[in-house]
């Protein structure tokens, strides 16, 4: 059987699928796992930018599927982690250039070589989504603590259940504790109560995420970032470790202290 195929999806756009994919990929690589990430968002390629690998693209996913190159040729090796690779999406084609069967065939070829194959799904529930989940052993659903994102996550979970891929595990991204305290944002409990699936990560809103993505250095490489820590914790949970969720409920001072404590403890 070999490596595990994990698809990261959400239904709604803009909730942080690509950021999550990049960070979990890097965090797993830091834990000495062999990882290949596949950007399944054909036509709206992004993962290469977040990973800082845009200028190294020669071949892409559609080239592999259509037989213009071998999977190995399309894999871009990460700058710091030699066991971390990216297969970028094509920018000029659309979702129909790849079929679910192509994805299964591709990932089956990669399982022998890698511990994790992480697929970044496009937004939506159409062909691109079906391509992305076709090969998945596990699905991680990213959502934000707002009603529209949770509604879309619910829809996606229903579709996954219908394909016997469900229900998947949940990543709650961009959580703002002070807004939850004021009753202005759904709490993790509210969200899991609605969706009734297992939570694998709670990622706090963090101002370092966007500049990290812009500079192509995923935030999980920043040991001072609380979001980075949350992504590292998700990676450890994927490896079967029991890691408690970061407690976000205390005052800001303690919040930072805990962040430092965890960051220091992991080095």
């Amino acid at each position: 059987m070999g490596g595990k195929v994990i698809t990261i999806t959400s239904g709604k756009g803009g909730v942080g699928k690509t950021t999550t994919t990049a960070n979990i990929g890097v965090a797993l690589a830091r834990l000495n796992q062999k990882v290949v990430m596949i950007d399944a968002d054909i036509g709206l390629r992004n993962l290469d930018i977040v990973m800082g690998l845009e200028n190294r693209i020669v071949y892409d996913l559609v080239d592999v599927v259509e037989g213009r190159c071998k999977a190995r040729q399309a894999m871009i090796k990460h700058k710091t982690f030699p066991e971390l690779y990216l297969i970028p999406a094509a920018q000029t084609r659309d979702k129909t250039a790849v079929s679910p069967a192509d994805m299964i065939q591709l990932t089956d070829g990669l399982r022998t070589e890698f511990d994790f194959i992480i697929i970044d799904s496009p937004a939506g529930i159409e062909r691109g989504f079906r391509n992305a989940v076709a090969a998945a052993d596990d699905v991680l659903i990213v959502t934000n603590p707002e009603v529209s994102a949770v509604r879309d996550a619910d829809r996606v979970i229903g579709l996954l259940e219908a394909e016997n891929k469900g229900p998947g595990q949940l990543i709650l991204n961009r959580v703002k504790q002070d807004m939850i305290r004021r009753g202005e944002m759904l709490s993790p409990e509210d969200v899991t109560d609605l969706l009734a699936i297992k939570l694998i990560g709670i990622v706090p809103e963090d101002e370092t995420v966007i500049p990290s993505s812009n500079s192509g250095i995923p935030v999980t490489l920043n040991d001072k970032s609380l979001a980075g820590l949350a992504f590292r914790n998700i990676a450890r949970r994927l490896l079967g470790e029991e890691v408690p969720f970061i407690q976000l409920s205390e005052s800001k001072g303690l919040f930072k202290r805990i962040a430092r404590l965890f960051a220091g403890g992991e080095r």
Partner: protein
Amino acid sequence: MREQTTVAIKGVKDGLLVTVSESGEWQIIMNDLAARIDHQSAFFNGARITLDVGSRPVRRDELSSLKAMLERRNISLWSVMSDSATSIDAASALDVRAAQTTSMAQGVKPDAAPFNPEEDGTIGVMIRRTLRSGRTVHSHGHVVVYGDVNAGAEIIASGDVIVWGRLRGNVHAGADGDESAVICALDMTPTQIRIAGYISIPPKDKRHKPKPETATIRDRQIVVVAWG
């Protein structure tokens, strides 16, 4: 070439109605249908199909492979008609519209009195899972959900709707005009409920405590009262 009598195709108002034989192997039916489509692929391209399987119980995997076969040919499986609960269940599991038909509904004469729940042979479906957003259930009888009905999910029933769980989505009971239909839930916080021709939106209530409630029509409006 074999006589293709297992499949009948006819054009209807909003697409194509494909009626398949109630006996014979599913694989043969699929092959026949595929052959028919491939024979006139230009005609079928982009079509929307309603599949009538009659009383044939179609399993989820069978329906799933048919759906995939159609999708490969750029045809969408729009809805499934059957009076087999297995087929209806398979369709709703695959997120395809499902409509219960014929013999089950034949028990109810169109001009007859509304459903009598105490009468033998009352028809209905039992759904033993949570209905998530986007899932729609149509039934000519009653619907019982053992699970939640999440916001974005929808139940349309000619009879009553009972939710043994939280009702957050849309429910239309007595959809054929039966004003005696009721809607019950252990926690009644729907997006909207309808009974026959009446529509109701629940009041916004922040400090809502879950309790079983029943919605009925009284004095030409929907009222919600404690259950029991």
